[in-house]
């Protein structure tokens, strides 16, 4: 359990990568997060997190095609690895377990 711990931001980024399914590169991820969570994210921090997750083996990346709008530079697309999927699932299960453990009365208003 310990080695699969994810930070909050890391989790969001990984989920977004999963949502975008094959179309996940820097700008697209930012836009998706902005759209869904109404949260401002800077390019630099996204790139740092993506690299970190790749190093941990939760993501893999490959270059796409060069496009004109990017001044002839290729996009780097990210996808979630099996390890990543497993970690995401574990994180969710842990959360659910915690939710379920709350006695009913504590959340009644």
């Amino acid at each position: 359990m310990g080695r699969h711990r994810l930070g909050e931001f890391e989790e969001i980024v990984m989920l977004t990568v999963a949502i975008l399914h094959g179309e996940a590169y820097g700008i697209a991820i930012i836009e998706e997060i902005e759209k869904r969570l109404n949260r401002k994210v800077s390019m630099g921090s996204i790139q740092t997190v993506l690299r970190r997750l790749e190093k941990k083996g939760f993501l893999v990346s490959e270059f796409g095609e060069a496009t004109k709008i990017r001044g002839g530079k290729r996009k780097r697309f990210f996808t979630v690895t099996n390890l990543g999927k497993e970690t995401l699932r574990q994180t969710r299960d842990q959360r659910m377990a915690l939710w379920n453990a709350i006695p009913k009365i504590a959340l009644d208003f």
Partner: protein
Amino acid sequence: MPAQPPKKALQFLRWFCREDFLEEIEGDLIELFAIQFPEASRQASWTFFWWVLRYFRPEFIKSFQSGTLMNTALVKHNLLISYRGFTRNKTAFLINLIGLSTSLATAFFIVLWVQSEWKMDRFHEKDERLYQVMQNYQLPEDKIKVTSWTPGPLSQGLRDEFPELEYATSFKTGNFFDGILSASEQAFKATPVYADQDFLQVFSFPLITGDKSQVLTEPGSAVISQSLAKKLFGTAFKAVGQTVEWNKSEGASARYKGSFIISGVIEDISPHSSMQFDILLPYQFFMDHTWGVERWNNHPVSTAMILRQGVDLSLLDQKITQLVQAKDGAYNGVYFLKQFSSQYLYGTYENGVLVGGRIDYLWLFVCIACLILIIASINFMNLSTAKASIRLKEIGVKKTLGVSRGELIGQFITESLLLSFLALLVAFVLVAVLLQPFNAITGKQLSLNFSLIHVMLFTGITVLTGLLSSTYPAFYLSAFKPIQVLKGKIERSVGELWIRQGLVVFQFVISIFLIVAVLVISQQMSYIHNKNLGYDRHHILSLRTIGPLFEKMEPFFEEIRKLPEVQSIANSNTNLVACENFTWQPLPHAEGEHTEHILLNVFIVTPEFLQTYGIQIKEGRNFSKDFGTETSKVILNETAVKEMGLNNPIGSMITFWDVPVEVIGVVKDFRYHSMYKRVEPCIFRLFNEGDNFGRFIWIKLEAGQQVKEIDKIADVYQQFNPGLAMEYGFVDEEYQQLYESENRVAALSKYFAVIAILISCLGLFGLAAFTAEKRTKEIGIRKILGASEWRIVTLLSKDFTVMVLMAILIAMPLSFVIGHRWLESFADKIQLQSWVYVLAAAIALLIAWLTVGVQTFRAARANPVNSLRAE
């Protein structure tokens, strides 16, 4: 065509960004730019720049290690070579180490001192808006005197009329008011400040308990310092609410006497405050007990304020002047505001114009620090270039093996940096050891606390010195051509010799200049100390009255007069040496509206005062009991007579403090201020009948055996002030204290001059040793051919003598001009005499000869067989 992002930004990005990130980042940025461009084309470029800048952080910056300087093997090699160099040339190494560490230690001391001076009074929270009210008094002959004294009710007036300021406070300082604070059967001497309710709002003296807006509002409340609170009550918190007695032991009619309830306790005053006190007493109390404080035409107190943001200073200056003029029609001065913290460093005015202050000494010492560092660096440069021939082979071999010039330069820089850091360690030891004596000379409480700023400053200075001393040798040595070097041929350019000699000359110019400076300063100081001031300041004991003695002054005087060694005893309201009691006197001939005024220093005295001080009477007579009560009679000095325009002063009537008085005498002018000031007009009058005497008691003693006499006086004092030790001083000592900063500068400059000369001589010693060593063969041959030892000594010292003589030629005019300028700041000064220069030159030459002589004699006496046989 799609929009182009700014090229400069892209170039910058490509330069610093890691290769594996670059493509992705660049693409993303360009894409974002393309999205934003149609919306706001102008802004997009700037935004792009901003984006690029945000990537400029460690995760995205590529490694710039190219392997020249940072290569560890090379660094190791350089360190090893440096170490071997040090061990091979122990003399040069020691000379450099001693020179550098002494000069670094000097520089560190100066840094500590400058920093502490710089911090003075800047700790107040609203420092940049904290202003003090100053004024220009118009004196006769278009002279202007600047003071910080203001009318007593000014702060109230400011508060009522000017919304531009947040807080204003009037306060009265001065150890003149020192008194005794007692509570629970304990009593301690304390220095008060009389302050009105906003004092702690204006000045940030932090309170331990109490609310700064409340503690001074009640008329009977007082704030004491933490250490005083501890002494009286044990802790700060116990003190609050307690009653303390101020000057309780003084008699019923004593002026400053009362009981107060402690409303707050402040932390002990920081040594970085120019205002030092132990207790804050209510301003109203001071007003109630001092004559004339409530008057607008009297200027006894200081006023400071916190301005609001963005207030027009010059407008406010005018408004304050107008306010005072509205209250006092005769006022013809000009008020202005000055940042409170700037007064400490920039406090000297000449005829109304700011001319500097302590800041001059700060600059002086910063310059001295730089000069001493340069002298030590020059030693390093000279010794390493002079010894170049020893390292020629090493450089040649390295170069043929393909070592680049940059790497060689790196090696020399490493060597000198290593030396500098070794010197830094020694310097720290020196500073730690010598900090106490240094504090004693400067009167500061400096300490070596390793704050970040100190570490940075000291490391910075060390690195700078290391680089400074290594640049010239590094470039000079690394420029040799390998073929010539290995063949053993080396063309020594004339320029190189010139540089080396020029540097020695420069060192000696500085040294001679400092010798002259020390001589001039000490001459001027001894002139000041021995100058005839128009009064006799020797053998006068000075006491401050406190305690019950106040009530029994006359009987005390009687007792003292009975002592055989006492010539006379007198009392006055102010100190003659540093008079701080003056009034605004209307001129007698100005009829009706008194538009013209002069500043008059007021001495309220007992009849024996003039006699005690040996002040000579020019016309008329002294006060005397034979004439009955003489409280309506006054005595003036010559300047006062002149400025008031009295043709026949004796017997003429003038109005003084709204009462007509008769002039009965005129005294010769005497100097009662420091030598920076001209003689100001002054007036003497007697204490009113039934009034209290002043705080100052003067006892003129016969010369010799003072210790015994003082014991006797102390015995009498004990009878009148039981339980209180007699605190006393001598007038001549107090006079010297006027020149405290000059005395310190004089003392410090002596040390610095000695250090500069020592370091210069170390360098000269090294050079002489080297020359002698290089010329051993020549000396040997000369001796075989019959040259006498003396001839060889002169031969070897000739070059050095010429250098020192040149330094003398350059240093003389320089020191003349600067010495002259320094002396100009004194009203009374010595003439610059030629023997000072001759002496300085002689000292420099003598020291240089001694230094060189040791080496040359050894070389000249050596047996030529030894030097010629060695091959």
